[in-house]
């Protein structure tokens, strides 16, 4: 329920499954405003071989920041390799709001690699989640890449930890 003048967020999760090529989805929002319902549109280019994209290759192409045990894991590095012949400027378009912040290199020189890093927010460390971030390049196609981010948290029960300690 939204009072007059209020706002809320709607998170759309897209499971790419075994889709290939360009996929467009239009989830429909049903409200008491009545028909016609409003839509949001998501567009994607699902790739079967994410290790050979152009003009950039992201490694790893899926980030798993899972934590099994007490040792806190709150960040992960990844590499962007520019496989084109021109320097590319990188812009962050979307990041997992409230879960993590993403740092990207400003420019990746032609033929070179640069490092990015994702930092998990303190509030998100006890949570398991699947999110993503999106960046855009300044090539002719203004190519975009979305990198999935997954976190599973499994800690030993407190009693088990005590037993181990004795």
């Amino acid at each position, binding site marked *: 329920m939204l009072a007059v003048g209020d706002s809320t967020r*709607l998170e759309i999760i897209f499971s790419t499954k075994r889709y290939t090529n360009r996929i467009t989805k239009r989830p429909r929002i049903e409200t008491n*405003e009545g028909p016609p319902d409003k839509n949001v549109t998501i567009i994607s280019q699902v790739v079967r071989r994410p290790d050979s994209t152009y003009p950039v290759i992201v490694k790893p192409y899926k980030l798993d920041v899972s934590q099994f045990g007490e040792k806190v894991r709150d960040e992960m590095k990844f590499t962007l390799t520019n496989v084109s012949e021109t320097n590319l400027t990188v812009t962050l378009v979307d990041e997992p709001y409230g879960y993590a912040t993403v740092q990207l290199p400003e420019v990746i020189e032609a033929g070179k690699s640069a490092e990015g890093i994702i930092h998990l927010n303190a509030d998100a460390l006890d949570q398991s989640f699947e999110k993503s971030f999106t960046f855009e390049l300044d090539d002719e196609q203004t190519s975009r890449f979305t990198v999935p981010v997954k976190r599973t948290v499994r800690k030993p029960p407190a009693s088990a930890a005590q037993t181990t300690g004795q």
Partner: protein
Amino acid sequence: MKKVLITTLLFVGLLAVASANAAPRLTVPVSEFDFGYVPQNSNVSHTFWLHSTGDDTLRILNVKPG
């Protein structure tokens, strides 16, 4: 006294008309998002902002996958 009564009735009448015409309205300022390249067999997500811009309470009843 009569004037006050008529004015009050007019005011109440106008309020009733305004209330009857009040309508909820959903506004989605940015309703499209391009993920670009996405790997197969993965989950990605994007958050859209929804605004209630009508003059009555907006109820979101359902979101159906497209």
